[in-house]
């Protein structure tokens, strides 16, 4: 088995450090409000991290390319699944045929009507007392 590629220790350490660094970056960025760009950026960072893991930790970079193909295939089918499902879910009630159709399921489930109000500890509170006296940063 001596012909197998042995990744140098240095590479592993650099990759792990970059992963930790990128995790920090993505948390930091999430506190800046960029609107819908937040999600794009977060997914971009996540994809960079995922590629680092796949190519270096999982050795895809040095492996038989068939293995990479398998992995890419899984992403392709995931893409197909998402895209085609969204062709429906994002376009229901297109053609503007019927306004009721447009916003299909935004109806609150019935069981919420029976739920009592709670404080941030989940204990029921009296509706008439001040609801906002609790500190929100409990945890």
């Amino acid at each position, binding site marked *: 088995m001596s012909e197998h590629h042995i990744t140098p220790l240095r590479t592993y350490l650099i990759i792990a450090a970059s992963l930790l660094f990128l995790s920090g970056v993505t948390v930091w960025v999430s506190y800046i409000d960029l609107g819908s760009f937040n999600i794009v950026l977060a997914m971009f960072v996540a994809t960079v991290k995922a590629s680092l893991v796949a190519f270096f930790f999982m050795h895809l970079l040095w492996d038989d390319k*068939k293995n990479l193909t398998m992995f890419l*295939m*899984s992403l392709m*089918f995931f893409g*197909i*699944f998402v895209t*085609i*499902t969204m*062709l*429906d*879910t*994002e*376009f*229901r*009630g*297109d*053609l503007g045929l019927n306004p009721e*159709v447009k916003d*299909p*399921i*935004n*109806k*609150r*489930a*019935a*069981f919420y009507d029976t739920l009592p109000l709670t404080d941030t500890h989940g204990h029921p509170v009296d509706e008439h007392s001040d609801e906002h006296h609790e500190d929100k940063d409990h945890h």
Partner: protein
Amino acid sequence: MIKNTKQNYLNHPRGIMSWLLTVDHKRIGLMYLVSGILFFFMGGLLALVMRFELAAPGNDIISNEIYNNAYTLHGAIMIFLFIIPAIPGALGNILLPLMVGAKDVAFPRLNLASFYIYSFGALFALYTIVNGGVDTGWTFYTPYSTQSSSNVVPMTLGIFIIGFSSILTGLNFIATVHKMRIPGLTWYKLPLFVWALYGTSLVQITATPVLAITMVLLMLERFLGIGIFDPALGGDPVLYQHFFWFYSHPAVYIMILPAFGIISEIIPVHSRKKIWGYKFIAYSTLSIAFIGFLVWGHHMFTSGQSVFSQIVFSFITYFVGIPTGVKIFSWILTMYKGQVSFTPPMLYALAFLFLFTIGGLTGIFLGAVALDIHLHDTYFVVAHFHYVMQGGTIVAFLGGLHHWWPKSFGVMYNQTIANIAALGVFIGFNGTFFPQFLLGLRGMPRRYATYDEQFVELHSYSTFWSGILGISIFIAVMNLFWSFMKKNKVDPGSNPWGGMTLEWTHTSSPPHPHNFEEEPVLQHGPYDYDKVIVQKTYKK
């Protein structure tokens, strides 16, 4: 080069434990075959019960509840317990390693595990029968399936478990095709059955996980009311249909691709002619497997999905039709300037061409959105589906069994009876399902236990012929079984059809416990009837 050895996989080693713990792909294939045939008969019996109920309009034999249970179990058993696991599991297991010249599949123990997982899942499915059945239809559409008081959970759990077996078999086959071929057996020299199994396995490993997660979500919906598919909880039943068909449409190709492979073997061998358009058939297998993932929405043309996706799905649906069509023409042209023998496997293959062409062409009607809206959920769909699944897959499966029977078990069946049964299957099948196209066009909805007077004539025709179909299939299978019991042995070197692939030329019938006594050396391609004459050898 085939030695007259007395040792084969059936008699060596002996003892019940040597079967239960076997890692030999041929024995595992045989176990799949036996359980598959049992489920096939069980599903067939349920079908006959339904057909007899439908002979007349009212609730004459069984009540609505029993009818609903019967059709659900018929669908679930035929699809999840027979066609999907058992056909690749039986013929694929027995033949794939032989065809690539390997001593076994890549992971024999995994292969055995896969069989036991299948059996374990099947137990759950059988439990639903003793426990009072399940009445949701094999599609388990929400919210009915989250509300029904019948055994939805054991059934979905069974399907979930069988899914793992399907995935493991798929993994095993893919690894075997990629890595276990003998030197010189390049991709373009592989028998087309191997290509078909390869395509099937790709679909299995890609689609089945989504079924598994769908079944998990369905069960959670029942236990926890998670609200993803249940409209009363803010969820969306149409999303369930997307999830379900993302698996179940490709699953149709899990069911039909092995049949394509079988036909691609039978026709050249029994016509003694190089197959027409080898590369095209090989590539179309892969492209059908791929396009199969893009078209699931045509099961949902009346569900209220967006008009945009209706159009997209209708458009892509046609692209499945074209490679399939070219395959049919290639099979027919294969016979050109050949030497065609009308043996039982060849009769099944010709019946397949006839029936599958009808099944495929009626798919075009259903792909046109405007027309599908009228035909959706009517008997037209029932007829189309059975023309593809029974007229296609099961007829090809019977053909494959007859083709490889002497190879797998070293016995020969009575060919006259086999021919008569094949004819009976063909006629009985058309008699049963052709009237159903008309029923559908005239508006008869499916899954009805009772129906309107106007449909009675066509329904009673259908019922009459279904009896003939049932009897013919029973005779066909019993004829095979009988030859096995009677020990109607053929000479181990027999090659009754003059096959050219490794399993015919390089190993005994039934094969040696380790497949080949010495590693096979490839001498010619799988269909080189223009270069080599392989004699038909068949000695008792």
